[in-house]
């Protein structure tokens, strides 16, 4: 029974500055069901990060409505967690891996043992149960991003939002981390909103891919990905259907870049 978790309606964001105003987001509307894994792709500079910041309640939209679980988002919601691209600047270097994962739990009403349990569980889920007492800067980039993911997982959010989380790690680590995301989604039924500029990644990960136009942004296409839920880096990516889908998304992005797609007037 699908149930709407996140609703974005006619979102518009205009940045005002002394040199004039810039319309970053024109009109974005989409919905996300509970338990879904939705990828958002778009040409560079299309306001993906602006969109995420609005959804995360870090930035106030100029107009439009964002609802999480039926409640309008005006400030960062308690049941949402964010994973940033810049893991090095998102983890606190003065805290250990454990300390970082535990920090957001401190103001939740949990007993000490419940908290420890959540931290252990999250570190285990990302394969870092041995690194709890290390500091983030002692770890590789991929492992640091795992810590950031563990922190989000331990927080037990309704929805996990990831902003180009693997853009700064090498290709092999990236494949591992993609599978980790799939696994978290499958095993824990987590709802995930995943922003990326990598077309293959969006098709490989997503159950749906939302293609954004260039700025001022609107939703150019909302594409269901009809690949089997069990995905594998080698076999899935070799499927003819995978190639078709990625080619389709690729063409959409090219059209978006050239501004060929025409915004439907409602």
């Amino acid at each position, binding site marked *: 029974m699908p149930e709407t978790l996140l609703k974005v309606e006619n979102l518009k964001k205009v940045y005002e500055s002394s040199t004039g105003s810039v319309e970053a987001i024109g009109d974005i509307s989409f919905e996300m069901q509970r338990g879904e894994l939705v990828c958002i792709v778009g040409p560079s500079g299309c306001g993906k990060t602006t969109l995420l*910041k609005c959804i*995360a*309640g*870090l930035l106030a939209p100029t107009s439009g409505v964002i609802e999480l679980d039926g409640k309008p988002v005006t400030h*960062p919601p*308690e049941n*949402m*967690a*964010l994973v*940033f691209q*810049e893991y090095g*600047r*998102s983890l*606190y*270097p*003065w*805290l250990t891996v454990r300390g970082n994962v535990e*920090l*957001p739990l*401190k*103001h939740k009403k949990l007993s000490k043992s419940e908290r420890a349990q959540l931290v252990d569980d999250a570190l285990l889920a990302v394969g870092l149960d041995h690194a709890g007492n290390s*500091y983030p*800067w*002692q770890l590789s980039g991929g492992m640091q991003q795992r810590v950031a993911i563990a*922190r989000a997982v331990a*927080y037990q959010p309704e929805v996990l939002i990831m902003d180009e989380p693997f853009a700064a790690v090498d290709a092999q680590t990236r494949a591992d981390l993609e599978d980790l995301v799939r696994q978290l989604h499958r095993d824990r039924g987590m709802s995930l909103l995943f922003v990326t500029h990598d077309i293959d990644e969006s098709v490989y990960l997503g159950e749906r891919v939302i293609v954004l136009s260039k700025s001022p942004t609107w939703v150019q296409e909302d594409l269901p990905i009809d690949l089997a839920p069990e995905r594998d880096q080698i076999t899935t990516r070799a499927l003819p259907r995978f190639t078709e889908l990625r080619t389709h998304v690729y063409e959409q992005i090219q059209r978006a870049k050239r501004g060929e797609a025409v915004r439907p007037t409602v």
Partner: protein
Amino acid sequence: MSSMMTRSISVLRKPPGRSRSILSSIWFALGLPFLLLVVWGIWATISPQKFFPGPIAIIQAFIETWVGPAFFADVLPSLARLGVGIVVSIAVGIVAGTVIGLVRWLRELLEPTLEFFRAVPPPVLVPILMLIFGPGDATRVLVILAGAVWPVLLNTIEGVRSTDSIMTETARSYALTPVQRLRYLVLPSASPRIMAGVRQSLSVALILMVISEMFNNSSGLGYRITYFQTNYLIAEMWSGILLLGLMGVLLAVIFGFVERRVLRWYHGIKEVERA
């Protein structure tokens, strides 16, 4: 070629253990002071000068002057003023600096004024503060505060202000409480700057302790040294200066110990970056 040689030698030398490198670093640390003492001693023996007694005379004067009642009459009061002055300066600097650093309009309002007060050489405040508050211990602590608070204050403002934007957004998105943000984000992230400020404050505090005691006072190191000087007790005067130098070294050692603990993560990152 020669650089390759020295390189291979240093590589060969490293394995025999840390004890040797500690020993050699002690040699390096104490070698120059020792050499200076020897040169000074020889020079003072060859050509005795009235105002520059030899090291042995000064060490004798040091023991006679400072070991005994003078330790309680002069050294301890000075140390107490210094200690209280430093602690109050650091506390006021960090608290006020954090508030000013976090509140933008306050910062814009205060910064030019703060720069002015910082630029005023604190010793000139001594006579004024003495006039207003009288020559008591509190006034002397106030003198130390008036000079030593600035490096901590200004560095804290700067450190608090430059908290990383993504770290701040992380804190916001996880809905950390204001107290948690202060405790786990703002203060730790400012701590390298704060510690740099504290380091400067320590030397300023020591200077101001001495100067504050040179004005109508009847106890303390500054007073005692001026007293020796005006009474031509030259070796005793030098021994007081030696004591001040040792206190400075002691402060630096304590600071280094605290800094290594507080900024362990910071030095760790630097080490990783260098590797």
